[in-house]
């Protein structure tokens, strides 16, 4: 339970810090780079290094490649839909989450597993 709480606090702090940097940057397309900052990864991998060591962390890094490819597909599709259809951002970003799962698990199964 303590480990989960530490992960929650460290993750929340790192994600908020990267998001705040993104808020200060202009133009919007450059600030958007921080929407794909390695914030969750840094918090998680940092804590994993303490608990499990380098080899375990390397396995997580390998799978993260599939997750990053899925994030590329997700963000590209979200951007495209938002520019073309009159739907609000919350609906588009939330309804597109299954796309991230589909690409991440397919890429992992086909290329990494």
């Amino acid at each position, binding site marked *: 339970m303590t480990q989960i709480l530490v992960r929650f606090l460290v993750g929340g702090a790192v994600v908020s810090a990267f998001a705040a940097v993104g808020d200060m940057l202009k133009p919007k397309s450059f600030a958007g780079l921080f929407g794909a900052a390695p914030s969750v990864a840094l918090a*998680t991998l940092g804590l994993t290094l303490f608990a499990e060591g380098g080899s375990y962390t390397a396995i997580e890094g390998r799978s993260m490649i599939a997750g990053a490819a899925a994030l590329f597909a997700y963000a590209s599709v979200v951007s495209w839909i938002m520019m073309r259809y009159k739907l609000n951002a919350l609906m588009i970003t939330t309804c597109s989450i299954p796309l991230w799962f589909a690409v991440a698990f397919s890429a992992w199964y086909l290329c990494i597993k």
Partner: protein
Amino acid sequence: MRVRIDATALGQIKWHDYAARFLFGGLVTAVAGIIANKFGPAIGGLFLAFPAIFPASATLIEKHEKEKKEKEGFEGATRGKEAASIDASGAAMGSIGLLAFALVVWRFVANNNPWLVLAAATLAWLTVSVLVWEIRKET
């Protein structure tokens, strides 16, 4: 297009927006840890690139741009959506950098100083992301 830093933008964000980011970021980090414990690091690693605060950030950008335009007396909904779309295209470019981050961690973390590897991976993310952004800007 030159990159600028505007620290006053932080003052325009409400406390509940900061709280939402903290909550989603914390939750995804905690859940990624739980998944790694239950299903192993191969599955847990996927969630290190989960779009944790993406919906909250896109909604915030859409709302701010819409309000800004409406204060000036214009219709703001379209501008709000455009701004959120541009931000999302930036995130797509950043995710190519995230791929570089993951590659550096995977290849080097087991046999080198892990803290230096994490720092190098973060630098790789920033360098690749900015390069992709610069190339895209030119085309």
